[in-house]
């Protein structure tokens, strides 16, 4: 098991380098001069040249790539062009904010999603089922930014209950958490429902019934436990998706997290910051994936056997599944 975790952790390293190279390459070919953005209209050509040298913006594609990779090896994400301070410092404070909101959002998503998913599956085709599947489908069809705006319109403008922006007080947390959480709860709910329906049809549920077990115990001990495997997968994916969704949420609710930092840096052509954000998000997603995989072993003993047996690299089947559901 430990071997498996180490292997997976090691695998993250090339992924991060790969991601860094991809992002760097994309941004390298982007129009817009960072120096012009950072120094403003009055910058003299000499100042621009000095800036480029200072920020490592001079040299060919390969020079810069080599600099990026060697920097990464030392854990250096470079300096922000805008503030001329190390990107990593900004990222850490901002990431805390994003993580904070995402954590609440995913908890909300899990609670709502699993609860309504189970209800929906157990009372299939009942009014509750129709209602919650319908609402969930609306949930995933609603553009997140629109949902956020509607929340502001309703709770800040019309009812004046909640502050429309910022981060810190619990009142300020409600709307962003709801906007993020409702979206993921919809996905979790749909997965829970189909997974529970599938599991409830299984023979071992009948076996449990034949033992004389109570229905509620069957649902929780036998059915939910088995149904958790795809649910956990989706929760893991939702966590990564939340990180991406937080871009829009943070913009709408004026929250200073990684998402808004990314958008701001993108418009300011602060590529070092953009790279840093993307690498960080990729890193966190990778770690989350690993955690999900470890959780699998607790839930499904078959996985544990599989991991423990030699020659585990990436689990291709799971990744394929991931592909299917991501962004869902």
């Amino acid at each position, binding site marked *: 098991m430990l071997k498996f975790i180490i292997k997976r952790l090691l695998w993250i390293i090339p*992924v991060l380098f*790969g*991601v860094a190279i*991809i*992002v760097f390459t*994309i*941004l390298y*070919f*982007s*129009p817009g001069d960072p120096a012009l953005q950072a120094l403003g209209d009055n910058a003299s050509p000499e100042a621009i040249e000095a800036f480029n040298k200072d920020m490592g913006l001079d040299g060919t594609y390969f020079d810069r790539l080599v600099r990026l990779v060697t920097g990464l090896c030392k854990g250096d994400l470079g300096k922000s062009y805008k503030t001329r301070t190390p990107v990593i410092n900004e990222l850490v404070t901002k990431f805390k904010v994003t993580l904070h909101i995402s954590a609440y959002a995913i908890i909300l998503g899990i609670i709502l999603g699993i609860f309504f998913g189970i209800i929906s599956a157990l009372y299939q085709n009942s009014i509750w089922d129709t209602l919650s599947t*319908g609402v969930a*489908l*609306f949930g*995933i*069809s*609603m*553009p*997140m*930014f*629109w949902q956020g*705006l*509607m929340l*502001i*319109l309703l709770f800040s*403008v019309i009812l004046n209950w909640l502050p429309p922006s910022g981060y810190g007080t619990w009142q300020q947390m409600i709307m962003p958490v709801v906007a993020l959480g409702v979206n993921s709860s919809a996905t979790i709910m749909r997965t829970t429902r189909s997974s529970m329906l599938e599991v409830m049809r299984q023979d071992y549920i009948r076996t449990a019934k034949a033992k004389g077990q109570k229905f509620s115990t069957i649902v929780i001990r036998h059915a939910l436990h088995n149904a958790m495997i795809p649910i956990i997968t989706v929760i893991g994916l939702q966590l*990564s*998706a939340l*990180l*991406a*969704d937080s*871009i*829009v949420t943070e*913009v709408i609710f004026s929250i200073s997290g990684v998402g808004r930092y*990314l*958008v701001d840096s*993108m*418009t300011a052509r602060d590529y070092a910051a*953009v790279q840093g*954000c*993307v690498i960080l*998000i*990729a890193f966190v*997603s*990778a770690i989350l994936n690993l955690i999900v995989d470890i959780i699998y072993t607790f839930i499904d003993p078959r996985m544990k056997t599989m991991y423990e047996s030699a020659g585990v690299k*990436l689990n*291709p089947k799971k*990744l*394929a599944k*991931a*592909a*299917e559901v*991501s*962004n*869902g």
Partner: protein
Amino acid sequence: MAKKTRDKNQHHSMVGEVWHQFKKNRNAVIGLIVLCIFIIIAVFAPMIAPYGYDDQDAAHTKIAPCREYPFGTDNLGRDVLSRIIHGSRYSLMIGFLAVTISIIAGGILGVLAAFYPKLDNIIMRTMDLFMAIPQMLLAMCIVAALGSSLFNLMLAVGLSSTPQFARVVRASVLSTRGQEYVEAARAIGGSDFNVIVRHIIPNSLAPLIVQATLSMARAIISASALSFLGFGIQAPKPEWGAMLSAGRKYIRQCWWLTVIPGLAIMVVVYALNVVGDGLRDSLDPRLKK
């Protein structure tokens, strides 16, 4: 020759069966109808819309929905209904073309990976790298690199979901490839290309269609989110996300400028989602086989 007709019949009966299953799903049928309505609207937009999408009327700005302007007018005095109608073209086109781009790119990569073990590792590991970046971020970076325009937006959304299609196609081709009739086709000397085109692609279609429908829904949302963040379409094109973004500052006085484009996006995406769900459910028995 005889074989061909039988294949055709089989194909026909499969479509029939799927349709039969699909019909039973009331929601999906409604979704399909809604979708068809939007397609019709998009195709005949200039005929249906009461005004042009860029017809400004300085005397009638920011009018709330009323009989003359059912969806109101915006800050430049343009009829929102007409803009929504014209905008359906962009949203549907973006969704459709973005998915087409990812199907083609992902399809080629997936088939190559599945068919040539030597390429498999390179292609799929590269796809892993791309998938480590959330789709939205990737799309943002691509738009930033290409510059914002309608085509670049589609390209960005399409390219960013390519890895997922590559996976689905690869998985589905791998499972199809193991089937006896494909082995048989290879055994009697069919070229790789022939086998891929004649046998594998048609038989891998089912999961691809489902994935495509659902991806189209996602593509529309992603594209509108990018437009909303300002990485999208050029004004005055009435793309819904851009309309929403422009109307955002009037949210207090002119709610219709944000509510209506948002609803339009939601309805189309909802329709696509239920149709996708319906298709998946009706294809399900086959997928399980």
